[in-house]
């Protein structure tokens, strides 16, 4: 069955439903919403949304870094645990992802609201309602909460595969714990870090639900703007232009992170 034509249905499918739609996005991005004539107007309008682009990228980047900092020790702990415990902890990491992310985000609303669980509890201690929701910190919290498993899993994959004898060798050669970490463990886990950051950053930068539920009134992220072009403002052409720019930005970011790590492969899937 070594027959490359077996891939033909797949290739046709992907061309029809991946490449052609992207071509349609480009077509819409460069045409006018009313007349359908070719125009650069949609792209020119992008300047007004520069601050929203910057804010989206900034919040997604902060979330990715927080995920890395808190996810690394967890991934390390799981990777070094005995086999049975390892499987159990991995299950616990994957399990929350099986519950609708919409509901889990709503649960955070109930926790963080002015009359929510946390503020009710603080109120009993005599601490007035804290502004826990409708700010950027709440958006970052929602992003970290939703996408943390995407950081932990690839980190775990590389850490688990790492040969413990490398660490022993470094110790034998006189490295202290800190040096072992910075000279052996950290560089060895670079592919996991890169794919973890990518897997957190991409959904975070394009989210529109988390910002809507947890962010303030001016908290629109780029995903919100795109969504509203399709569901409220009915300007699919401008929505297409925004999507196009978002996609190009993301591919540039992925290219840059891959360049920095010098490793093209990464550990995309667990």
């Amino acid at each position: 069955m070594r027959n490359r034509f077996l891939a033909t249905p797949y290739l046709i499918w992907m061309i029809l439903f991946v490449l052609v739609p992207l071509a349609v996005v480009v077509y819409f991005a460069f045409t006018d919403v009313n007349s359908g004539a070719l125009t650069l107007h949609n792209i020119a309008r992008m300047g007004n949304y520069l601050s929203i682009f910057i804010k989206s990228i900034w919040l997604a980047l902060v979330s990715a870094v927080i995920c890395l900092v808190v996810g690394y020790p967890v991934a390390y702990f799981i990777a070094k645990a005995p086999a049975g415990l390892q499987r159990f902890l991995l299950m616990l990491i994957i399990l929350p992802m099986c519950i609708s992310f919409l509901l889990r985000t709503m649960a955070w609303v109930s926790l963080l609201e002015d009359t929510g669980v946390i503020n009710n509890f603080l109120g009993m201690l005599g601490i007035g309602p804290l502004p826990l929701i409708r700010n950027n910190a709440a958006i970052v919290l929602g992003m970290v909460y939703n996408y943390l498993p995407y950081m932990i899993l690839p980190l775990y994959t590389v850490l688990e595969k790492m040969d413990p004898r490398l660490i022993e060798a470094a110790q034998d050669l006189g490295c202290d714990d800190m040096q072992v970490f910075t000279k052996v463990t950290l560089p060895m886990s670079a592919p996991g870090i890169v794919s973890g950051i990518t897997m957190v950053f991409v959904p975070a930068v394009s989210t529109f639900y988390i910002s809507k539920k947890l962010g303030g009134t001016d908290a629109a992220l780029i995903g919100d703007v795109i969504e509203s072009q399709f569901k409220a403002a009915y300007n699919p052409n401008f929505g297409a232009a925004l999507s196009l720019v978002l996609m190009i930005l993301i591919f540039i970011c992925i290219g840059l992170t891959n360049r920095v790590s010098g490793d093209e492969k990464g550990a995309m899937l667990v």
Partner: protein
Amino acid sequence: MKQVQRVVTVIIFLFLYIPILLLAVASFNSGSDPAAFKSFTFHNYSALFHDHFLLPLLGNSLIVAVTASVCAMILGTLAALGIHAMNKTPRRLALGLANIPLMNPDIVTGVSLALLFAFVGQLLKTNHILGFATLLIAHITFGLPYIILSVMPKLTQMDPSLTDAALDLGCRPIQAFFKVTLPELTSSIAAGFLMAFAMSLDDFVISYFVFGPTFVTLPVEIYNYTKKPLPPKIYALFTLLFLAILVVMVLMNLLQARDARQERRRRQHGM
């Protein structure tokens, strides 16, 4: 150092499970605000079983997820076999194609398909193109890469002389495929299938752009509740779903543990 890891791990697990605990508690709450517990009740569960709205939506989600992941499994397995037989450059292109929906944010995938369907709708002069078919196409498209990425590594690892041996022993190529190649691939096909199924069942972002009023899935409907409070039976539904998934995962875990033990024993006996 070890201590720090343990503390962080415990905190993170609490962080991951507190919202889920809140949903579970809300499913036993007689009030509709999850933040204020009124009194304990099973009412939400009995309401769920007499429900004619949520369960059909869950049914819709399951229909799409099963159909899409079965189609993706067939297309994807064939594709992996085909790609495996390709030379370097076409192979890289074909795999690159699978990476596009993986790397692209969901919203861009959703928007691009929505625009494609709008475009085709214009050509066909119809306003009712969105529905089950468009949803299915979208879910197959984002499920395919998971199958391919899960099957390809196994194919590359597989010893080609196994198939050669089957052929030498008189198997026809098709027999060799069903008797040798396919059994080797079963576990990775299953892993890819589960991945595609889970992604499809929980997908909201892409579905939101390509669903039609004639066929709504559960996540899309939950999103429509953004303005009003959720009916508490939704919490009951998800608590039950969570328990079901928990049981399945624990069982899988036990099976894996058993396999690992057997493997170890076999190795000890030098087999």
